[in-house]
C-alpha cells in the first residue's frame, strides 16, 4: 500500500469518526447517568484491527480535535474530559491488542477505561472525589455500550474490503 493511500484511508476513517461523534451528540440522547453509546469507538476498533495502534491514536486525536472544534468547545473543560476518555480507551485497546485479547473484551475494557478517564479528569479539575460514586454504575453501563460497539465493529470488519 502506498503512503498516500494509507494516509487517505486514515483521514477518511477520522472523518467518519468525527461525523459519528457529532451525529450521536446531536440526535442520540444519553443513556442512564448521562453515558453515551460512544459509537465513534467503532472506528477506533476498526482502525486498530486494520492498521494497528499508532494509526488508531492518530485517528482518535484527529477525531477529538476536529469534533470538538466543530462543536465549539475546543480546549474547554468538556474537551479535556473527552480527550482523557479517548486517550485512556486507546491505551486500553493498545494493551489488549498486545496481549492478544478478543475484540469483544477489548471493546468492553476500552469503554470502561473511557468512563474512568473522564471521571478522573472531572475529579482532578474539581478537586472532589464525590464523582467516583458514579464509577460502579458507569462500569455496568460501559460493559453494555462496549458490547454494542463490538457487535457493529465486527459486522463492519467482516464486510470491509480495502
Amino acid at each position, binding site marked *: 500500500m502506498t503512503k498516500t493511500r494509507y494516509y487517505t484511508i486514515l483521514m477518511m476513517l477520522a472523518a467518519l469518526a468525527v461525523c459519528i461523534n457529532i451525529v450521536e*451528540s446531536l440526535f442520540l*440522547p*444519553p443513556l*442512564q*447517568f*448521562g453515558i453515551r453509546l460512544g459509537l465513534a469507538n467503532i472506528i477506533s476498533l476498526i482502525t486498530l484491527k486494520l492498521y494497528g495502534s499508532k494509526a488508531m491514536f492518530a485517528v482518535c486525536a484527529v477525531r477529538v480535535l476536529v469534533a470538538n472544534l466543530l462543536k465549539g468547545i475546543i480546549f474547554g*473543560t*468538556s474537551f479535556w*474530559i473527552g480527550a482523557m476518555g479517548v486517550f485512556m480507551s486507546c491505551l486500553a485497546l493498545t494493551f489488549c491488542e498486545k496481549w492478544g*485479547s*478478543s475484540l*469483544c*473484551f477489548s471493546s*468492553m475494557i476500552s469503554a*470502561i477505561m473511557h468512563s474512568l478517564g473522564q471521571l478522573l479528569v*472531572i475529579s482532578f479539575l*474539581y*478537586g*472532589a472525589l*464525590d*464523582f467516583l*460514586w*458514579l*464509577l*460502579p*454504575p458507569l*462500569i*455496568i453501563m460501559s*460493559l453494555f455500550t462496549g458490547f454494542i460497539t463490538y457487535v457493529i465493529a465486527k459486522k463492519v470488519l467482516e464486510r470491509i474490503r480495502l
Partner: protein
Amino acid sequence: MTLMKKREILIIAGLFFLALMAIIFFHFLNEDNKQVLVVNKEHEVVLSFDPKEDAYYTLSGAYGEFHIEVKDGRWRATQVDCPNHNCEKMGWSSYAMYVPIICLPNELWVIIDD
C-alpha cells in the same frame, strides 16, 4: 470463533460483580438522615436541603439558572440553562439509588453530605 476467552469472561464477570457489590454497598451506606448539598467549583455549599420535604429550588450557576425538584424523597435537576442538559438526563437521585448530579457548564454538583 468464540466471543471471548475463558479468562476474559472471568475478568468481565468479576468487574460486573464488583460494580454490582459497590452499588449495593453504597445503597446501604447512605443513611436517610443526611442532608443533600449543592456545591460549587470553589467547594462552597450553595444550598442544602432535606429530600423528605418536597420543594423546588432555583439556583444561579456559572452558565445560567439551575433548578432542583425534590419530590417523594428523590431529587433531580430540571430546566437547566446549559448547552447539553446532561445533568437533567441523569434523572432522579435518592438515598437508595444515589447518583451525584453534575452540571459542568454551571459548575454545580448535587451530592449527599458525608
